[in-house]
């Protein structure tokens, strides 16, 4: 049986190794520790980490946790050249923004908002793994729906879609 401090250390290590969210269920599976204990220890870990000035943070997302940097230091981290930074054209960014804020959404809906054919841009975003297919819309023609991916969150520095900057006031996205 693991000691409390060992569980803490192991969870830290697990969150560190994974780029992205680790489910609560995964932690329980890996450590074979009761749910109640994990939740309790997670509270303790998060209280230790999420303190102003600390370099790392731990955020809760959909019954799981993500380790990430403290946004206070984003000015410095930007300066670290990441291999193959993904450059997107303004047209691709525009399309991605529509998908991010209106997901899941079909190509026809995107094209109606943009006023231009967007097939090639969508193919490009799919290829970059920033968006993914998200099933079929139950309307005539059964068009494919698109949504953003985990990679999208990673590239744009979001823990979850809730972190998307709010859209301009006074106008609702349908």
């Amino acid at each position, binding site marked *: 049986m693991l000691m409390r401090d060992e569980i803490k250390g192991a969870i830290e290590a697990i969150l560190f190794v994974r780029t992205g969210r680790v489910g609560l269920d995964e932690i329980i599976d890996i450590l074979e520790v009761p749910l109640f204990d994990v939740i309790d220890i997670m509270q303790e870990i998060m209280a230790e980490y999420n303190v102003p000035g600390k370099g790392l943070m731990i955020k809760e997302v959909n019954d799981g946790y993500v380790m990430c940097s403290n946004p206070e230091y984003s000015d410095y981290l930007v300066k670290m050249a990441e291999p193959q930074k993904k450059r997107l054209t303004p047209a691709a*960014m525009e399309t991605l923004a529509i998908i991010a804020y209106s997901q899941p959404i079909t190509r026809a809906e995107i094209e109606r908002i943009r006023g231009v054919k967007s097939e090639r841009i969508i193919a490009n975003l799919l290829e970059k793994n920033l968006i993914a297919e998200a099933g079929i819309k139950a309307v005539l023609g059964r068009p494919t729906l698109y949504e953003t991916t985990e990679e999208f969150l990673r590239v744009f520095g979001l823990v979850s879609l809730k972190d998307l900057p709010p859209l301009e006031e006074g106008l609702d996205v349908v």
Partner: protein
Amino acid sequence: MDYVVELDSFHGPLDLLLYLINENQIDIYDIPIAAITDQYMEYLSITGDFDLEKLGDFLIMATYLLALKTQMMLPRHAEDEEELTEEQDPRTELVQRLLYYRKFKMAAEKLEELKDGKIRRYFFREDDTRFSPPGELTANINILTELFYNLLKKAQQIPRVEIPQDDIDVGEKMKEILAVVRKHRQGIFFKDFLSGMINKRELAASFLALLELMRLQKVQAVQENEFGSIKLFLGGRHKNVNAG
């Protein structure tokens, strides 16, 4: 007008319109359609090496604007002399679309800033699985086969189109359009006129021909309700849009 910005740098017709509205410091809720349409048309006339596929989308907007311009010029009934209500204003749909589009355009700028860390953001560990050896790949041969099968099926449905090397003559297209419009006294939908054309150059030439005919007032384009659904009439025949 100085053409500082090339048409190619606009992502689409709405983008160009927003630019013109901005440049002229126009109130988006009260767009002088005639003036904006003229400027928009001027931009289109200097397309240069423009991507023809994209041009098609710009031209659809052009036809729409011209129809809107015509509609705005129609004399109103006496009781409508005061301000138009939102429902009556033919510009309402365009304004809605522009506002909606602009919202996402701004969101895109925000996202870009987020990506570049100009807004405080989280960073995650570099994802080294992206560089993992191909041994880590999972793949299914049946999916591969099915994909190829579907591609072949799709490819065999599309007739091969050879793009002619010679430019399609806009003048010829003007004659064709006039002939068709003369034949359809009740009007013909522009998209029906275009249907059957599989060649992008031919489509673009047709649009240009139509625009020229409208400029010469030989053909009138009327937009009925739906965005983009444009009906063509012989010039001067169809005086009252609302009756049509």
